[in-house]
């Protein structure tokens, strides 16, 4: 289903009091977002790799995401194109980072602390080096931050940019985007959204200036 279809389905299953703006589209959208986040979290608890089915790829359509060195810290980084849903592993909502085209260079997530000490470890020192100007089997590491991703990466790899697979919140999709509803949770999630919205108390519809309804 597209995002618009999901919102429409939910609105059509709510009490018809919408002339009061009780179920404003944004409120419905936020409620679905919260329910979907719970659904993604359940999938993560089952097997984090299955979240790959719910990611969107950025930088993979011929325009890689740029990786630039921060002028103050010297750390290579990419500003995230969209917000992500956080998860409790090092990847968080950035499930995969890769070179723009498939190469032998691979990216792996680390914590910020691990990132800071990588240069003194074998994992960092043997991460890969230049052979005749070309990089082969380079291992790069990345840290997911609030609004950016930081990299332990050679400059040659950085200059080519990256692509990312990100689990994005429901409210970040466009209306006509197809959204994968978390696996086997269609009924459960829709019921949760409708229940969440139904519990909002109705507004006072009588124009009688009374303190009580």
């Amino acid at each position: 289903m597209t995002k618009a279809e999901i919102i429409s389905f939910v609105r059509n299953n709510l009490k018809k009091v919408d002339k009061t703006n009780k179920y404003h589209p944004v409120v419905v959208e936020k409620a679905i977002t919260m329910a979907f986040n719970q659904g993604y979290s359940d999938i993560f608890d089952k097997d984090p790799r299955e979240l790959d089915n719910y990611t969107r790829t950025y930088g993979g359509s011929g325009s890689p995401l740029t990786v630039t060195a921060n002028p103050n810290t010297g750390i290579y980084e990419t500003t995230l194109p969209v917000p992500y849903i956080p998860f409790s592993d090092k990847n968080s909502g950035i499930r995969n980072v890769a070179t723009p085209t498939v190469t032998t260079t691979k990216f792996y997530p680390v914590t910020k602390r691990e990132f800071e000490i990588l240069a003194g470890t074998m994992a960092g020192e043997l991460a890969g080096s230049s052979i005749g100007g070309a990089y082969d089997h380079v291992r790069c590491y990345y840290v997911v931050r609030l609004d950016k991703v930081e990299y332990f990466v050679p400059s040659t790899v950085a200059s080519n940019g990256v692509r990312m697979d990100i689990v994005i919140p429901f409210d970040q999709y466009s209306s006509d985007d197809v959204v994968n509803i978390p696996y086997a949770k269609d009924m459960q999630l829709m019921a949760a959204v409708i229940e969440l919205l139904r519990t909002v108390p109705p507004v006072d519809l009588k124009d009688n200036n009374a303190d009580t309804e």
Partner: protein
Amino acid sequence: MADTSAIIPLSKLVDRFVFKYKLPDQDYALYFEHAADCIRELSIHAISQYRDVEIAVSSLGVISMPSDMLDFIGVALSYKGNVWYFTENQYMIIQASDSVMPTDYDTYWYSYGTTGAKNLYYFKLDWEGREIHIDGAEGENVRLQYISSGLDTAATCQVPIIVTPAVDAYLRWAQGEIDGESINEQLKRKRTYEEQFRLLKLQSLPSLKDIRDYFLGMTTQSALR
């Protein structure tokens, strides 16, 4: 395309370990670190990581030891298809500045290396400073033979693929410690690694043909009367 090489990058070996055991990406750097430790241990005790490299001696007679050099075998000059080893001189005086070397013991020579019991090329190892001081081949290229840790930072670190079972077993053992497995489970994995280590050592034994040649080399053939 499948990789069927006899040597593979260490990074690929760790990739395959994570892949085979359905392990999360987030522990990759930790496994890489343990894999490097394992390769170093195997290089010292189980597989012969013998390196023979051509290396330049500075004009002041100094060779910087390669970063992966764990033990020294020899330093030599190549001449007419053979190597001619230098002689160790423990009494060579190394100046504090490192740089001023004693002059050659002799100003002439007949051939490379030893000629008529006259040593013309000397070396002294300085493990603390990770340098080899050469007397006699300043500014020349020499052959340095050494035992490597197998961990080369100057290029993609390559390891023999036959170490895969031993490295996998080592990483499974490390994984048990990282994940807080029971002592029994950890000991089981440790024993598996020791078994793989033992099997790997068998590979470095001489072949049957080598042993046969060795025994035949000790005998003198003569006419049977």
